[in-house]
């Protein structure tokens, strides 16, 4: 069944797809976005119920393999110490993310030149700066100007509140003379653009019932749809089709009823992120592209970068009121961000300080750290940790390695029989040394803040939620998949705009940069519309 042809087909309605759709809408081109998930209903998010902590282990859990949603595809990540965490819906993984919203730094684009490893990006911080600014306004980013860890930037909303916990941690950093700053967060700290302000209810990572967290279903999508973009949900793309000239001709997709459709398009934009994008390209084989679409370099799926995470938790003597405020967003430290080779590794990391836990999570922490016995000592042991924990996650830069890759699993498929992705990934020596250093510094600063005990978990297995590198950007078709404007070297009307185009990973959450790249690519397309259809 063939649909009416469109000018632009965007595949994926997550962070990048939404920004792309919104930006291109002003051209009045006919734009369709296909998304295999559906619209989420914030009124049904777990935090509207008293037993919300239970849902973190079920339908709103981190791994697509555990959730059992038809909208998610399974992932074979058995050969990776870090497990994939993504989410298919309008909004994509922004539905669950903690909304940390830092930028990359100028040095993150020049890793080869500065540090002699990995590669340089073909674009730089200056190229993306206006798009970071625009994205901050569209997503509603809260933060404080003046951070010495970054070039100057303006943000539209005041920073997330520190509260007692944030101040306690800040004093810990101050005692050591280390950098810290309120985290840039895509959270509306005031009423913003028709969205209600954050009410500091705590767990952002199981969906924001308030609508204050900037997920793209409540930021870009409403505007893009008003301006004429058509978003078709529960439409799962099986493959991108090509014509006899080797140009993309559109996509084959399966709708909610299981009926297959052809969607012809002049231009195809892929926005399925670091695992979904290479999976789709590898599934789009043809005589002309036997190794997958746009893959003459052999790099589709390769150079998969996560951010190896460590989590360091401190137990304090005093009540910290840590159940208040966005759990994942309080203050950030980039004291150890820029390379210092005397440390024994290259590149660096961010500390993103975490608030406390709810009652059940506290019990689970007690159980997993073997400090919560049953019986006579139970209540004193629980009292020792209840509302007395705070800590951080450490986000370590991951260097690109071709053997870290996404391929197609020979047996596993999604609910529509489409081959699922398989992950092969090994933690590098550089990452291990970095994790060790970071854990030691994490303990140091938590103790400086008053923690009487600390607990480290490194690497953090469920933390494969940053997915980058698998369709990298570059000038040379032999060593990259897309050009500096996101266009496939092999297929001139195919674009990729998500985390898979990253050349290096930096040591910060990628969503802000993903969206800045999407806006940058869209802007370039708009300025070159006459050549686009050649």
């Amino acid at each position, binding site marked *: 069944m063939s649909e009416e042809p469109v000018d632009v087909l965007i595949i994926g309605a997550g962070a990048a797809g939404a920004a792309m759709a919104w930006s291109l809408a002003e051209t009045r081109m006919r734009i369709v976005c296909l998304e295999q998930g559906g619209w989420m209903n914030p009124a049904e998010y777990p935090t509207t119920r008293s037993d919300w*902590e239970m849902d973190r282990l079920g339908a709103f859990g981190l791994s697509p393999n555990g959730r059992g949603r038809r909208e998610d595809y399974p992932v074979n990540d058995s050969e990776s110490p870090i497990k994939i965490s993504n989410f298919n819906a309008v909004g994509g993984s922004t539905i669950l993310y903690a909304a940390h919203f830092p930028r990359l730094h100028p040095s993150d684009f020049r890793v080869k030149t500065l540090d002699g490893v990995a590669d340089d990006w073909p674009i730089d911080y200056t190229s993306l700066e206006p798009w970071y600014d625009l994205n901050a306004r569209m997503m509603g980013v809260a933060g404080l100007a003046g951070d010495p860890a970054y070039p100057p930037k303006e943000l539209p909303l005041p920073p997330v509140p520190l509260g007692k916990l944030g101040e306690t941690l800040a004093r810990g950093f101050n005692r050591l003379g280390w950098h*810290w700053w309120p985290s840039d967060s895509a959270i509306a700290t005031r009423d913003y653009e028709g969205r209600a302000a954050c009410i500091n209810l705590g767990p952002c990572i199981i969906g924001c019932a308030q609508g204050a967290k900037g997920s793209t279903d409540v930021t870009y999508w409403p505007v893009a749809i008003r301006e004429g973009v058509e978003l078709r949900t529960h439409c799962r793309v099986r493959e991108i089709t090509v014509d006899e000239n080797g140009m993309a001709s559109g996509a084959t997709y399966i709708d909610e009823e299981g009926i297959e459709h052809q969607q012809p398009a002049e231009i195809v934009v892929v926005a399925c992120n670091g695992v979904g994008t290479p999976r789709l390209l590898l599934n789009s084989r043809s005589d002309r592209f036997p190794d997958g679409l746009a893959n003459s370099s052999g790099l589709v799926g390769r150079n998969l970068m996560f951010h190896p995470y460590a989590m360091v938790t401190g137990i304090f003597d005093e009540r910290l009121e840590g159940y208040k405020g966005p759990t994942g967003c309080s203050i950030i430290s980039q004291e150890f961000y820029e390379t210092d080779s005397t440390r024994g590794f290259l590149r660096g990391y961010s500390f993103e300080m975490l608030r406390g836990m709810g009652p*059940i999570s506290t019990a689970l922490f007690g159980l997993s750290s073997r400090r919560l016995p049953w019986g006579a000592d139970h209540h004193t042991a629980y009292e020792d940790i209840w509302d007395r924990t705070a800590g951080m996650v450490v986000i370590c830069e991951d260097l690109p390695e071709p053997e870290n890759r996404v391929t197609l699993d020979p047996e596993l498929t999604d609910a529509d029989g489409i081959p699922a992705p398989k992950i092969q990934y090994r933690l590098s020596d550089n990452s291990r040394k970095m994790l060790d250093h970071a854990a030691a510094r994490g303990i140091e600063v938590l103790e400086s803040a008053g923690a009487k005990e600390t607990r480290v978990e490194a690497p953090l297995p469920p933390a494969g939620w940053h997915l980058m590198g698998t369709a990298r950007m570059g000038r040379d078709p032999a060593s990259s998949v897309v050009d500096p404007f996101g266009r496939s070297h092999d297929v001139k009307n195919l674009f990729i705009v998500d985390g898979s185009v990253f050349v290096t990973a930096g040591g910060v959450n990628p969503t802000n940069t993903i969206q800045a790249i999407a806006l940058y690519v869209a802007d370039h397309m708009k300025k070159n519309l006459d050549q686009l259809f050649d």
Partner: protein
Amino acid sequence: MQRTLSAVLDELIPARDEEIPGAGSLGIGAFVETQLGDASSLASSGLTALDARARDRGAADFADLPTEERAPLLDEVAAQHPGFVESLFFHACMGYYQNPAVVTALGLEPRPPHPDGYELEPGDLGLLADVRKSGKLYRDV
């Protein structure tokens, strides 16, 4: 079986104070039963063993034993039924720590986080004074 489960839960999470009884008396047993899933048969055999041992000691069942004998007997049976106590304790914690009386005793209001949320102070950004003074931290290119 439910009576035995309830007595075990009272051992695992005992009375917190005069206001809040042990997890069994608080009624968490019903929740635990629904959560056991694959561990149901492990739980049944452990509970059956407890009652059997209790009868060996002259009690009608585990709940009928004098209080000071229960924990040691639980330890004994736990050693012979690996995972039995851990599984019950895990689910007991999940149920207990969402019970409204317990949540209130912890200092929280027994309500969903939404729509009321929490008040949170902005905090003293003057604490940033030293960071501001320390100067540029990022590398130029």
